[in-house]
C-alpha cells in the first residue's frame, strides 16, 4: 500500500516502528495532492513548507524514543473555516481571500500539540453555507467517485480529500449536516460531536448555536483517535462543556450486545432513492445480527426541522457575518463615495449569492414585527424537536437513519432551486437543532458505484456508543477497502 493511503492508526504504527518517516508520509500525501487535485479541487491552500517543517519536527520527536504524542507526524487537513496561525483562511469566500489568520483555533492548537502535520486548508461552501460545495467562491470541489458529481457540503473538501487519500484525516464543521453529508457522499466516516463537545474558538462562525467541529476520517477508529485529540473543555468558548471525555478510541471494541437501536418512521420517506433505503435497512439488520435490539420510535416534529433550521441558522448568520464590512480586514470595495456605499459595495461584491440570500432572510426573521412569528417560533419548535429526541432515547440507546435521501448528485443539478438543495439535509439537520452527536458511516454503494451513508444518532455526550456501533458495523464489511477510481 502506498503511504498516502494509510489511515491514522496504520500510519501511527509505521511511524513508531520507524518503517516510514513523517517526512516520507507528508511527502507522499503532498505528491498525491499534486497528482489529483487538479481534478478534485479539494484544497484551497496547501501548506507545503510548513507541513514539511512540522514533519521534520515530528521525526525528531519520534527519534527520541519516548512515547510520541498521539498524532505525531500524521498529515491532517483543515476545513478553510478553521484558523491556523500564519495560514490563509478564506472560509470559501472572496471577502476573506487574502485573510491570513493571526492565531490558531483551539482545535488547530490541539492538533499541533498532538504532533499532527497541518497539510493544508480544504475547500468548502462559502462560510459553510451549502450542501454541495458549489457555493465555494473559488471553484467547486468534486466527488472523487465521480468528478461530475458534488462531494456534498459544506465540508466537501474535507471528505473528498480523505476519500482521495489527499490527507490521512481532516476536520470539518457541521451546522446542519455539513460533515455527515459529504462523508456519506464520499464514502468516509464523519462525526458531528455533541454541541459543546469541541471548542468553536477560532472557527469562522456560520450559525453559532449549531456549529460544531468534527473529524472526517477513513475509518471509525481514526474518527475516535481524532476526537480524542480535539474534544474537551475550552475556557475560550463559553459554550464548550466541561464534562470529561471518556477516551473514545479505548472503548471501540466493547461490541453491541444489549444496545437498543431506534428506527424513526419519519426518516424513511417517499421519494428516497431506493438503493439508499435498501443499504441502510441492510446495515440496521447487520447491527441486529451483532446483538443490538431494534425498536421502532417516532420523532413527530421531524417535518418542521428544515424550516426551523433555516430560520435559526440564517438569523445567526446575518449577525455573525456583519463583521465582514471592509473596514478592518478582508476585501474592501474601492472607489466608493461614503460609508454606506463602502458597506454595500464591499458586501455586494465580496459575498456570493447564497450567503447574501441567507443574510437577507436572517435579517428579515429578526426584524421588528417578524421576530415573534419566525425566530421566536423557530426556537420553540427547536425545543420540541429536542424533546422528541430525548423522549426517544428513553426507549433506545441510539437512533439509526440514512444520512441523506440520495447519493451524490451532479454538479448544477440542484443549484437553480435552493429549496431542493436544502432538502439534502433533511435527515441531518434535526441532530444539530437538538445538539446531539451524529455519526456517518459508509454502508454500501448504489448502482453507479456511489457511496451510501448510515447515520447513527446518540444522546448528548454519548459519542462513545456511536463510535462503538460504527466500529462493529465497519468490521463486518469491506466498504472502506474500495477506493475511488482516480
Amino acid at each position, binding site marked *: 500500500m502506498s503511504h498516502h493511503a494509510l489511515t491514522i492508526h496504520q500510519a501511527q504504527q509505521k511511524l513508531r516502528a520507524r518503517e516510514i518517516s513523517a517526512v516520507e508520509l507528508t511527502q507522499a500525501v503532498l505528491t498525491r495532492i499534486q497528482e489529483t487535485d487538479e481534478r478534485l479541487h479539494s484544497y484551497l491552500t496547501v501548506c507545503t513548507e510548513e507541513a514539511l517543517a512540522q514533519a521534520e519536527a515530528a521525526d525528531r520527536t519520534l527519534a527520541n524514543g519516548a512515547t510520541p504524542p498521539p498524532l505525531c507526524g500524521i498529515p491532517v487537513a483543515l476545513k478553510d473555516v478553521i484558523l491556523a496561525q500564519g495560514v490563509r483562511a478564506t472560509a470559501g469566500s472572496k471577502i*476573506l481571500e487574502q*485573510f491570513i489568520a493571526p*492565531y490558531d483555533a483551539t482545535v488547530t492548537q490541539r492538533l499541533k500539540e498532538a504532533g499532527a502535520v497541518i497539510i493544508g486548508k480544504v475547500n468548502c461552501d462559502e462560510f459553510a453555507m451549502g450542501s454541495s460545495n458549489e457555493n465555494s467562491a473559488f471553484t467547486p470541489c468534486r466527488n472523487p467517485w465521480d468528478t461530475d458529481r458534488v462531494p456534498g457540503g459544506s465540508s466537501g473538501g474535507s471528505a473528498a480529500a480523505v476519500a482521495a487519500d489527499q490527507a490521512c484525516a481532516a476536520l470539518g464543521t457541521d451546522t446542519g449536516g455539513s460533515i455527515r453529508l459529504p462523508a456519506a457522499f464520499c464514502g468516509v466516516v464523519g462525526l458531528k460531536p455533541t454541541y459543546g463537545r469541541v471548542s468553536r474558538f*477560532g*472557527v469562522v*462562525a456560520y450559525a453559532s448555536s449549531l456549529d460544531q467541529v468534527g473529524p472526517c476520517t477513513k475509518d471509525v477508529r481514526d474518527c475516535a483517535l481524532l476526537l480524542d485529540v480535539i474534544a474537551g473543555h475550552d475556557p475560550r468558548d463559553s459554550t464548550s462543556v466541561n464534562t470529561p471525555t471518556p477516551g473514545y478510541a479505548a472503548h471501540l471494541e466493547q461490541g453491541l450486545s444489549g444496545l437498543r437501536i431506534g428506527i424513526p418512521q419519519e426518516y424513511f420517506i417517499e421519494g428516497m432513492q431506493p438503493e439508499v433505503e435498501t443499504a441502510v435497512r441492510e446495515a440496521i439488520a447487520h447491527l441486529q445480527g451483532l446483538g443490538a435490539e431494534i425498536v421502532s420510535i417516532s420523532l413527530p416534529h421531524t417535518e418542521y426541522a428544515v424550516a426551523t433550521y433555516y430560520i435559526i441558522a440564517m438569523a445567526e448568520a446575518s449577525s455573525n457575518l456583519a463583521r465582514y464590512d471592509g473596514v478592518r480586514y478582508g476585501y474592501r470595495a474601492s472607489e466608493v463615495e461614503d460609508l454606506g456605499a463602502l458597506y454595500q459595495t464591499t458586501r455586494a461584491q465580496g459575498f456570493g449569492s447564497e450567503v447574501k440570500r441567507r443574510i437577507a432572510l436572517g435579517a428579515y426573521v429578526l426584524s*421588528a414585527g417578524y*421576530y415573534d412569528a419566525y425566530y421566536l417560533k423557530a426556537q420553540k419548535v427547536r425545543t420540541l424537536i429536542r424533546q422528541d429526541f430525548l423522549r426517544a432515547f428513553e426507549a433506545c440507546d441510539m437512533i439509526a437513519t440514512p444520512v441523506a435521501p440520495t447519493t451524490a448528485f451532479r454538479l448544477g443539478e440542484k443549484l437553480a432551486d435552493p429549496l431542493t438543495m436544502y432538502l439534502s439535509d433533511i435527515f441531518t439537520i434535526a441532530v444539530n437543532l437538538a445538539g446531539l452527536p451524529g455519526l456517518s458511516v459508509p454502508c454500501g454503494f448504489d448502482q453507479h458505484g456511489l457511496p451510501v451513508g448510515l447515520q447513527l444518532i446518540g444522546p448528548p455526550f454519548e459519542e462513545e456508543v456511536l463510535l462503538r456501533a460504527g466500529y462493529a458495523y465497519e468490521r463486518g464489511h469491506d466498504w472502506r477497502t474500495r477506493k475511488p477510481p482516480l
Partner: protein
Amino acid sequence: MSYEAVIGLEVHAQLLTESKIFCGCSTRFGAAPNQHTCPVCLGLPGVLPVLNKKVVDFALRAALATHCTITPTSRWARKNYFYPDLPKGYQISMYELPIAEHGYVEVPALRTGSGQALRLGSGQAPEQAKKVRLTRIHMEEDAGKSIHDAEAGASLVDLNRTGVPLLEIVSEPDIRSAAEAGSYLRSLRALLQYIEVCDGNMEEGSLRCDANVSIRPRGSTEFGTRTETKNLNSFRAVEKAIEHEIQRQTEVVEAGRRVVQETRLWDADREVTRPMRSKEFAHDYRYFPDPDLLPLVVDRAWVERVRADLPELPAARRARFRRDYDLPAYDAEVLTARKDVADYFEASLRACPAAPKVVSNWVMDSVLRFVKEEKLDAALKIETWPCPPERLGALIGLIQDGVISTTIAKTVYEDMRRTGQAPEEIIASKGLRQVSDTDILQAAIAEVLTANPDKVEAYRGGKEKLLGFFVGQVMRATQGKANPQLVNTLLRQKLAQ
C-alpha cells in the same frame, strides 16, 4: 395652559474593571490608538466572547445600591447595527432579560437655585427626598471611537474602548424638571462613585446620559410624545438641553403642532437640540439572544457575596456623620453628596479630630468653593485636589491651638493651594504667627486708646459696644496677627482701669 415635563434618563456608566468585558485587554484610558486590542475585541473571524465575572460583580453592586430586583437568569443579546467603531457589527448587550430591574435612587429635593454643581446652596436644609424609580440596569460592551477630524479625507477608528464594560441604567419617567434631572444624575453618580464601579467623569465620557423628554398639560396622567436627546456630556448640558427641549416642545404644542418622536442631538455651542439625521441611527437593531454566551445565572450566594463587600452608601454615611461628628443635617448632606468630598472631609478630620464642625465649615466653604470656581467638578481623586486633606486638617489645628487666627488661616489656605506648601512653612516664611505676646499687645492697645480719647470716654460712660471697635483697631495695628481672644481680655482690663 400650563404644562408639566415628564423626563426619564438613560445613563451609561463605564465600569472601572481592569480588563474588558469579553477579553483580557486593559481598559486603561489614554493609551496610543488600538494598543489595547486583541483578536476578540477586534472582532476577527472565529473569536468568541468570554464573560469577565468582575463586570457582573460591579453590576450587582449597582443593583443592590439602587434597591433593584436581581434577575436570577438574565440573558445576553446582540444589538445589530453597522458602524466602523463596532467591529463585530453588533454590540453584546442585554435586552429582554436584564440583570436587574425595578429599583430606585433617592434624590434630595431641590434647594433654592437650580443646578448647583456641588449643592452649595444658601444653607437651607434639604426638603424631603424623592425616589426616582429605575426600570432596569443591564451590562453591555462599549464601542470604539471614530475620529473624523484628525486627517483630511479619512475617518480614523480607535478600538481601545471597544469592549470596555458599561452599565446602562434606565430610569422611569419620574423626573419633572431639568433641575430635578440634574439632581437625579448627581445622586446616581454619587452612588456609582461610592460603590467604586465608575469614576463618574462626564467630560471624559465615563458617565454618559441620554434624556427622554415629553410634556403634558399639568394634571394629565397620559404621556405626551417624547424625544430622546443625545450628546449630553456635562451636568450643565443635561440641564440646559432638557430646559431647551421642554421650551421647544411647549412652543410646538402651543402653536397647534405635534411633537415628533425622534432622536435629537444637543448642540452645546448654540445651546439648542436638533434632529439627528436618520442615517445617524438605525431603526431596527434586530435584537436576539447571543448564542455565543450562556444565560447568566446569578445565585443567592453570589448576590450575598457582593452585598457583604458593599461599601458604606451615602445614606448610611450621612447618618454616621450626624451621629459620630454631631454635624447638622445640612452639613452631613453636603459632605456626603460625593464620596470624594466625604473622604476628603474624613481625611482632614483625622489631622484635627477635635473640631468636626470647624473642619466641615472649611470643607464646605473653602475647599468646595475653589473646586467649583476652578471647574474641578470632574471625578476628582483626593490626591489630585489642590490642597491635600492632611494639610487642611493641620491648618485648622493651628487655628484651634491659637497659632493663627481664622482670618490669617484664610490667606494661608490661599497660599497652600497656590504653592502646595505646608501651612507651617507659609506661616513661618511670611511671619503670620499669631501675636499672643502680652507686652506687644499691651503696647498696641495703649496706642489705640491714646489715639481715641473720646471713644474711651464714651465706653467708660456705658457705651460698651465700642469694645468691638477697639478690638478691630488693635487687629489692624498688628496686621491681623493679634490673638483676638487675648486682645479682648486685655482691652477689657485696660478700659476697666
